[in-house]
């Protein structure tokens, strides 16, 4: 499939015109005219003959996800270094196939601008617009919430600039709200559910009663739905699914009803501060020491993040969840990245850092392969792109919805951590084939290549 694709792209219109134009004009015209001739249509922020291009790193620098944003920014800076041929090259040494040569992109040095999303749609879009209108970036990437990802992705589609999403887990990002110009490397709620299923069956059996507490917004709902589908397929019953206001702080009024509900599993569809608070408080209510229906009461946090899990302290010990990536993985790509990142900053990268680092490399690589910054060509390179050596096993950017398909990690809060970073233990690497789904189930439309 990928070989077919590369053949097609070699025979693409652009390639053809390039060859033809070169043949016709080579004798009489200076080189830059030739380039202009085949650069096809002009497009927004065309770097033209400039010696450098700019990336826009749009991450939360203030607000609840500021630490995650800071880690994303570190990863981006590292990616820029590696693309420009500085440092030890990181995943450039392990990723295959790879067109990048360590001399920037198409010989242009990569520079970057930064902005603060504040984890608010309006602020994120304002920041992205600044990058596009004022700084002239060719690509925007980053973010730590699905609301922001969907908002910025929509904007980038309108403006004709490619968006490589950061940390966003809602099914909608590459489902209902997918866009031609938006790409997501991070996994999603459906994959979390599919990956957790077999593990839950093994650990907790098929006769369980689950109680959901769900953050009352779109991400929470999609996760609740995905996890419910999985657990109900296992034969579990869903006792109740209760929506909790975002940022509720004190969840006691939602936790006490769990005690008498007859449920023996609590599923927390919360992220960030909500997750930390609800988990901490659920443990305080003694849920984990309880016996219900003759079984040990269990708590599940479907989406785990190491940075966030630190905030819950000892309470996460033994709790199951999924994560996109973890620094303790032993494949070549992960090791190369952890090495570069660790030597640069003195601590291991988070999953947010890994996904954003890979996203930056993927974009750069697609441009290099396309031989042009013209977005439709770059998009075509990314669509259906198969690669390995980026830390998640063989991975594919599915053309139908711009979602990356790769292995998913089922993790457990480490009972006996050997260091301050050893918070999560990888329980199982669930192969990609288990978490795949039909792109049609979530609807949505990618929209046109040309805008």
């Amino acid at each position, binding site marked *: 499939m990928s070989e077919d694709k590369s053949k097609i792209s070699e025979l693409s219109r652009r390639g053809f015109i390039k060859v033809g134009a070169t043949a016709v004009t080579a004798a009489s015209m200076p080189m830059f005219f030739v380039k202009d001739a085949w650069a096809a249509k002009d497009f927004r922020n065309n770097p033209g003959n400039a010696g450098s291009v700019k990336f826009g790193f749009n991450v939360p620098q203030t607000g609840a996800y500021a630490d995650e944003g800071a880690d994303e920014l570190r990863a981006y800076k590292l990616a820029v270094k590696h693309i420009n041929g500085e440092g030890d090259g990181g995943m450039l040494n392990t990723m295959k196939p790879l067109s990048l040569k360590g001399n920037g992109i198409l010989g242009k040095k990569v520079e970057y601008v930064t902005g603060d999303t504040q984890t608010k749609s309006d602020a994120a879009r304002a920041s992205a*617009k*600044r990058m596009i209108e004022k700084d002239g970036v060719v690509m925007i990437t980053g973010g730590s919430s699905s*609301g922001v990802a969907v908002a910025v992705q*929509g904007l980038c589609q309108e403006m004709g600039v490619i968006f490589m999403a950061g940390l966003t887990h809602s099914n909608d990002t590459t489902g209902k709200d997918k866009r031609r110009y938006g790409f997501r490397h991070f996994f999603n709620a459906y994959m979390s559910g599919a990956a957790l299923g077999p593990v839950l069956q093994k650990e907790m059996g098929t006769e369980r009663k689950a109680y959901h507490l769900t953050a009352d917004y779109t991400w929470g709902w999609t996760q609740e739905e995905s996890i419910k589908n999985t657990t109900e397929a296992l034969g579990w019953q869903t006792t109740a699914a209760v929506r909790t206001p975002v940022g509720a702080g004190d969840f006691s009024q939602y936790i006490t009803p769990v005690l008498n509900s007859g449920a023996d599993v609590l599923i927390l569809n919360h992220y960030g501060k909500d997750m930390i608070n609800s988990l901490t408080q659920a443990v305080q209510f003694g849920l984990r020491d309880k016996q219900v229906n003759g079984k040990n009461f269990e708590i599940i946090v479907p989406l785990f993040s190491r940075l966030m899990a630190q905030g819950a302290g000892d309470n996460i010990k033994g709790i199951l969840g999924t994560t996109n990536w973890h620094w303790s993985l032993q494949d070549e790509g992960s090791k190369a990245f952890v090495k570069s990142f660790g030597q640069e900053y003195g601590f291991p990268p988070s999953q947010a850092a890994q996904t954003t680092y890979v996203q930056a490399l993927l974009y750069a690589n697609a441009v290099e392969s396309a031989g042009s910054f013209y977005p439709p060509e770059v998009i075509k390179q990314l669509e259906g792109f198969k690669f390995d050596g980026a830390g998640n096993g063989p991975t594919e950017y599915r053309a139908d919805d711009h979602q990356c398909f790769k292995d998913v990690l089922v993790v457990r809060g480490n009972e006996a951590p050997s260091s301050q970073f050893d918070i999560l233990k990888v329980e199982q690497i669930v192969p990609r084939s288990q978490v795949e789904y039909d792109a049609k189930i979530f609807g949505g439309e990618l929209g*046109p290549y040309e805008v």
Partner: protein
Amino acid sequence: MIVPSIRNDWVIMAIFTAVVLTAPLWLTPVGAGYPDLLQKFAIFGIFAIGFNILFGLTGYLSFGHAVFLGVGSYTAVWSFKLLTMNVLPAVIFATLLAGVFAVVIGYVSLRRSGIYFSILTLAFAQMSYNMAYSVLTPITNGETGLQLTMNDPRILDGPAGQGLPSTTLFGLDMSGYAGFYFCAVMLIIAFFISLRIFRSPFGLKLLAIKSNQTRMKYTGFNTRPYLLTAFVISGMYAGLAGSLMAITDPLAGAERMQWTASGEVVLMTILGGTGTLLGPLFGAGIIKYFENIFSAMNDGRLHEIFSFLPDWLENIVVAITGEFVGDGWHLTLGLLFMIVVIFLPGGVVEGIRRANGFLRRLVQSSGTNTATLAAEKE
């Protein structure tokens, strides 16, 4: 010879119009001359001017004004989705619906005064925000925000071409500089109306309510209708600003109604100078400038800026200033609030007035007649 203060409103308007329309030119050197930020200046300028009609004239501090901004945005986007991508119906419907909301919320909230009034408006706004974020998702699309889609009916526009349509004014695309000039024209109109209100008997009555409502009431004067009118006008300003936000960027999110958004316009107005004509504009400009420009600075940029310094000094300066920009821009904003209010009671406008007074004394003593315009705009 000293030129007396310009009393003629038309001259003020002419100067104001010229300054606003040339904003892309004189804001470029400070890094703010790009469409999105220019639009934001104009939009939040309108929002703050409108807020000032209520707070500056009557002294009633609404802590929930962002709800009208949100209503305006949602209405505008729905107008794009259902009717047409033309911006005029969006502006009209948004302003009117925000006015209707203002009538309801104002009628209830104005039964109380002082902090009780503030908390009533806050409560309405927070209820709207929380509902829009969760249970009203069918109308507001919740956290993700209300967006245009390919299968919106748009009954007046006919079938859409490829891709999402963009907002237009009879065919003129409302993104980029065209969008800014549309907002700028709205700002000029909004400013003119505000100027007329400040100068009118109605404005004087509002000021009288501010200085002593009890006395007004004892003289047999029913203050409530006047207050409600001011509240509704200022709510409509916010609705207009909200619709402009949707016009320049067709997305409406619930965060626009959160208390922090209401708080922001309060801060803008106080920072610039409560009750002055231009103060709120300055306040809006300063806060939006910090939010968009200071937050985007990183060490790389700082090294560029301070590259004229010797290396060792450059590194020290960058290390220190680095704490105040990028992820530290909140800190700078907080310090600015404190410094302005400690040293300039009356806000930025007071600072300009003082600087102008100083200049004028200087001019007087040197005998030339180059009067500065900064003060006259007041």
